[in-house]
């Protein structure tokens, strides 16, 4: 037993060469600057559990990105494993983030409706809110696509619908703001920080829209760790003599929020 121990110790003699009294280990250096310091201009660390023989995630041809898991272990990216590391990280990936028919039981595919009634030249309302947890200080990328549908009567009341046929242009805008302080409303400086703006105009005389145009926008946010809410807005501008009803998000929308870390 004693001999066995001594052999093991002999194996690790070289490790002790660079050991100072600070609990640091140096390899190829007597002055380690980290707990483990491997010196030499071509030095690296070999982890056989990550090689192509032992790890099916390493194909032996391409270099495999190394990640750190929640324990601090070095791992490779794993698509099959639900908890596996991904090459880029999404905080939110929602296929259809605005309910198609919120005015149940009317089934129209209206999405969230913003009306600009007679006497009003502009109307704006919140069309969706999305909560967001940012795990660390990060730059966050938001990409969205929101559909539109336009009629000349209030979509929330259902059909019969008639088209907006005033032969004048109306415009739609979408954008989002961020509730930074978590008080549930957009206030203070949050009001003027507008992201991902997109606008389109619409005009018709005899036949109106039945399909869904998309408002595609994107923006980047620099956020400290925390919980936030994105407020998406829909804006409608028309003549005061017209009634315009615009449904935002009545068909398949998308929202992808990527975190750069």
């Amino acid at each position, binding site marked *: 037993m004693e001999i066995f121990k001594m052999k093991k110790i002999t194996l690790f003699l070289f490790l*002790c060469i660079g050991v100072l009294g600070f*609990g640091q280990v140096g390899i190829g250096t007597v002055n380690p600057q980290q707990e483990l310091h491997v010196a030499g201009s071509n030095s690296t660390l070999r982890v056989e559990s*990550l090689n192509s023989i032992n790890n099916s995630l390493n194909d032996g041809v391409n270099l495999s990105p190394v990640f750190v898991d929640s324990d601090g272990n070095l791992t490779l990216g794993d698509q099959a494993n639900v908890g*596996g590391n991904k090459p880029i990280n999404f905080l939110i990936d929602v296929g259809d983030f605005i309910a198609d028919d919120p005015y149940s039981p009317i089934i129209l595919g209206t999405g969230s409706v913003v009306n600009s009634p007679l006497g009003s030249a502009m109307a704006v309302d919140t069309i969706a809110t999305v909560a967001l947890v940012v795990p660390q200080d990060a730059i966050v990328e938001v990409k969205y696509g929101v559909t539109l549908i336009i009629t000349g009567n209030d979509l929330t009341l259902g059909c019969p619908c008639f088209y907006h046929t005033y032969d004048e242009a109306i415009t739609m805008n979408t954008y989002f703001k961020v509730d930074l302080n978590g008080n549930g409303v957009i206030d203070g400086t949050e009001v003027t920080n507008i992201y991902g703006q997109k606008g389109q105009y619409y005009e018709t005389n005899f036949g109106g829209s*039945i399909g869904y145009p*998309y408002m*595609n926008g994107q923006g980047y946010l620099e956020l400290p760790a925390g919980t936030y809410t994105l407020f998406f807005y829909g804006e409608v501008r028309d003549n005061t003599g017209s009634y315009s009803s615009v449904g935002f998000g009545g068909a398949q929308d998308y929202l992808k929020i990527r975190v750069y870390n």
Partner: protein
Amino acid sequence: MRKIFVCIVTVLMSLSIYAQVGINTTNPQEELHLAGANENIRLEGLSDTNNTNNLGDNNSSRVFADANGDLVLGSASNTINMLVDSENYLDDVEDPTSLINQTGNAFGYDPAGVPTNISGAIFTLTSPAIIEVNYSVSWSVYKTNSASGRIDDEHARIVQTGIYFREFSVGDNAADPTSWAAYTDPANVWCIDVNASGTVCQETGTMIALNGQFYNNADSKNGAYQNFQNTASDYIQLPAGTYCAFFAGQLAVGDTSGTGAVKMFLGSGTDDLQIIAYYFQ
């Protein structure tokens, strides 16, 4: 011998019967276990001074494992791959291959457009990846391609476009991606090809990066009808395989009276497409 023991005890290096090494721990959980909240490993071979692939201060340099399991730094091509970067992706023809014929109010999507450079459009993912697509696809729209062929009914129309992928399977003609089956993620299924009467879905697939814009015109001889572009950007996760990106589109109108079927062509102008892979492995 005693000195060595002292040395080992001092650094709390523990040697278990599994030959595991702990630094600042007597109970290593891995072959090499660095305990402590601020412990780290320094590999000089990966430093800015010694390794040109280290981007230096204020940048992050990704670490990879090579075939031996050695930790190395990657060059740009290892981190992300530009799979497709085309300044004019679709063939600039206005013929049946690029045609979307609006019948009725529009019943659904139809595939349209063929890549100009087929071999350059086909890309292979060596391992699973998250794909980013950025595109602007051109379209033209009219009744007939003649001096007085423009749409003049002043009915608002909506041009919707999206991108989907066809995936090579064993037995397919490798040179003809139009014959490959559309890649379908069960969580995101679209009908990408509906028949002319809107009753039968002829093919399903996963469509991403949707965009839609309005078109309206009131003069049969005047008014632009070409070189519009729909633009979108999106992500999708794809398994390893060989793919080719295609477009599908839909032309919708609320009132079909007086004009009949309207022709829309995808790709008749310049189209920009970039496909970028972020590999898992």
